């Protein structure tokens, strides 16, 4: 396996705040890498640095061997990298299908409109929105909007998908469905970098996990290794004694 996405020594300051500091990690081709950490650890900032919403102060982002550091978001999308947003950003007045068409038209494949319509339909089907194609996005439930975020990103037929908390706010049944969808996406050959707070889900989905705390890498490894790392437990719970107690229980 070779690295599809290589992030090296990435740093970003906001004013005096060091949001991300000298962070390095890699997503292997065909793998799922989980990015976890407490609130404010800088996870979403990492996404924004990778896909060009913010330009990093230092460091490099290589995607498929190409340097995409600081490229504008639409150029990053064009290179075959798609993402979803933690706070859903649907085109409210457009239908589900039209939302997906935008993703398909302008994503990595740069499809003409007619071809994009078909790709959009398929993407909607993969996330289970096939019976809502003509529904305006604004009328979807929160679970529906989360699925739309995913469908829109998928419609672009990306090589790498960045998923920012696609499970947050879903009920257990919806979480289970979404996990199956994500598994199917990976099985189809798309690599995934995902942020998730739902521990069981990300532990079972990810091949490897990177733990972020205060913008720095705290740990990296297989899900089981990371879950038992005292430093990680302390970062999450704040108190090693409490952590030990919980582990014993």
């Amino acid at each position: 396996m070779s690295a599809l996405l290589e992030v090296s020594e990435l740093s970003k300051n906001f004013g005096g705040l060091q949001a991300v500091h000298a962070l390095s990690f890699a997503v292997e081709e065909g793998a799922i890498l989980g990015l976890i950490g407490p609130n404010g650890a800088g996870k979403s900032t990492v996404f924004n640095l990778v896909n060009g919403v913010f330009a990093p102060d230092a460091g490099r982002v290589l995607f498929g061997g190409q340097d995409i550091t600081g490229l504008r978001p639409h150029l990053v999308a064009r290179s075959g990298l798609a993402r979803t947003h933690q706070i859903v950003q649907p085109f409210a007045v457009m239908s589900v299908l039209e939302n997906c068409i935008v993703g398909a038209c302008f994503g990595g494949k740069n499809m003409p409109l007619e071809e994009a319509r078909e790709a959009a339909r398929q993407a909607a089907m993969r996330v289970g929105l096939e019976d809502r194609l003509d529904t305006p996005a604004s009328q979807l439930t929160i679970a529906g909007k989360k699925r739309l975020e995913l469908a829109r990103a998928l419609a672009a037929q990306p090589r790498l998908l960045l998923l920012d908390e696609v499970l947050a706010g879903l009920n257990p049944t919806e979480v289970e469905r979404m996990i199956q969808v994500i598994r199917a996406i990976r099985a189809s050959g798309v690599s995934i970098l995902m942020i998730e707070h739902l521990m069981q889900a990300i532990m079972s989905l990810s091949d490897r996990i990177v733990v972020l705390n205060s913008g720095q890498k705290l740990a990296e490894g297989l899900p089981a290794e990371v879950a038992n790392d005292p430093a990680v437990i302390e970062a999450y719970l704040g108190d090693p004694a409490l952590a030990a107690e919980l582990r014993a229980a």
Partner: protein
Amino acid sequence: MATLRRPFFWILAAVVALFAVLPAARGDIELRESLLLAAIYITLASNINMMLGYAGYVNFGSIVFFGLGGYVCVWLMGAHGWPLAAALVAGGTAVSALALVFGLGILRLRGVYFALSTIGVNEGVMAFVTNFAPWGGSSGIYLSPALFQPLGGPAQALWAIYYLLVGVMAASLYLSYFVKRSKFGMGLLAIGQNEDAASVLGVPTPRYKAAVYSLSAVLPAIAGGLYFFKSAFIQPPDAFDLQLSTETIVIAMLGGQGTVVGPAIGAFLYEQLRSWLLTSESFSHFQLVISGVLLLAIVLFAPGGLAGWLYRRWPRLRSILE
């Protein structure tokens, strides 16, 4: 041609035929003048709609395209002896190129800041022209009536100008439709609803915004050329009339921003209302009061405008009227 099978195409053809035939068949000059103004309003509203309704950028100063197009055309004809057609093409091209330059600058701004900057563009250009000696400064440019001769004398020329304006109107409506159904239009609509999300999905937002700003300048510039050639006179306050600019926005919103036919319906109704008010002794210029009230009412109660309201009641209409 798939276009020929769409109802919109036939509605457009019917409207153009009515505009072309009605005044000529009845030899009705008054009707022609009223429809000429309607054609101009429809042209301006349809073009601003691509900025306002598709891309979601409020351009308060769109009249600058109309005025500059008028100036370029009148000046080329008066001072350099260009024929009308060449002067119109030159006007459309030059103004569109200038809009591209302005657009690349001011489209970095968003929302209110962009809207304010468009007023700045209009006022800035007006100040420049007012002090620009080759264009007659504040006293403007007069055209000799002799320039109507190539079109068969003044009476014939007025008919020719009318038909050309109807053609510009039809082109505006078709452009509006063509853009909306294209990939470019899809990108613009995405920008209009959520520019950041559009960019993340790969829509080349800076390029698309500048392109639509420039594209929305072409036909208004040509309409301006025709209008001021017809007047045989142009001066800065008429060319860069901010009031007309604002009315254009009211028209687009009244009819239904973002729809293809909405701005046209809005323009037609508004022109009727305006000419009805203008002819009444006590209410002349009362249209400004009414347009203010209308704008408030639309923003508060019917953000989709007339077309939006119709489409909500009869969803099938959307695919017929676009």
